[in-house]
């Protein structure tokens, strides 16, 4: 296991589209272990994507269980994640390991259904809402070379009470 270096914007590798994982083998699992160790070394961070450490494959980890008041599935490794359903829009504040010292508001779908493979290669499906759905969308964006600063919404907001800040 090893902690991996986080790429920081404007590193061009963060702008590349990651490739699907063809086979979930021991080498992939070894990389996932390193990615997990990297994530766990970063307090306050609830997700990480493989391209953030320079590996351009469609692998993400999310774990929002530290935010107990948000509904969540705990620690999940998602390989080749694909959003199959989304609805609702909600604005929330995001930050990114790859964009230090900046946070901003981003509009995301509130409800998401996602299919993927886990670290054993088994096909899985989850329905995620709110904060966890936000984390998922943020990480999947990394796989497509997108950063949250590409999707910022203005500072001003309406008066509607938000639930996803």
């Amino acid at each position: 296991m090893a902690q991996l270096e986080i790429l920081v914007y404007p590193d061009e590798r963060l702008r590349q589209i990651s490739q699907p994982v063809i086979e979930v083998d021991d080498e992939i699992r070894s990389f996932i272990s390193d990615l997990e160790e990297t994530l766990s070394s970063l307090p306050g961070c609830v997700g990480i994507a493989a391209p953030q450490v320079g590996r351009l494959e469609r692998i993400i980890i999310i774990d929002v269980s530290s935010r107990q008041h948000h509904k969540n599935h705990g620690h999940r490794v998602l390989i080749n994640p694909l959003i199959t359903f989304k609805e609702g829009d909600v604005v929330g504040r995001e930050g990114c390991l790859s964009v230090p010292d900046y946070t901003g508001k981003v509009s995301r779908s509130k409800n998401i259904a996602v299919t993927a493979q886990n670290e054993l290669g088994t096909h899985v499906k989850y329905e995620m809402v709110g904060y966890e759905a936000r984390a998922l969308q943020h990480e999947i964006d990394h796989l497509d070379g997108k950063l949250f600063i590409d999707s910022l919404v203005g500072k001003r907001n309406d008066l509607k009470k938000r639930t996803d800040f």
Partner: protein
Amino acid sequence: MKNWYMLTLVGKDQPGIVAEVSRVLFDAGGNLGEASMSRLGGNFTVMLMLHMDTGKESIKQMLQPICDKMDLFFHIDNIIAGLHQHIDPNFRLSVHGADQAGIVSAVAGSLAKSNFNILNLESDVGGSAEKPVYIMHIEGFADCSFLELEKSLQLLKIEKEIVMHLVPIDTMVG
């Protein structure tokens, strides 16, 4: 050695102010840092962090012609830049109600008792001239619970007859 300055400009709003001022500063070797511009009641206002190796008096001489031409007042101060030290807000408060003197004072005063550090405040006067409505958004940081902060604001809602929505900001970092 370059110095950091805070440049404040105020005047009647018109197209091209930012373009003209930033061009003059760039041509003189200036580099802009963080900035905040707003149109307040038809007035142009901006605060700009400016990094230049020129002294304050030289910058004044440089800006005076363009400010005279565009009818702008300006002010410049030496500052310590303090970049890369952002504080993330953990609460957001939206306030609205019939416009009346004292809303900001009352709300900010109540927040200050909770050691709430206001990081961003924006307000507008909307509605009609006959029935103006005051709308304010505050984001900031306080080292207390949501319930404690919400409770501290309860009395104000009744006293000032204003609507207040407090929401926690839970920044997602991924």
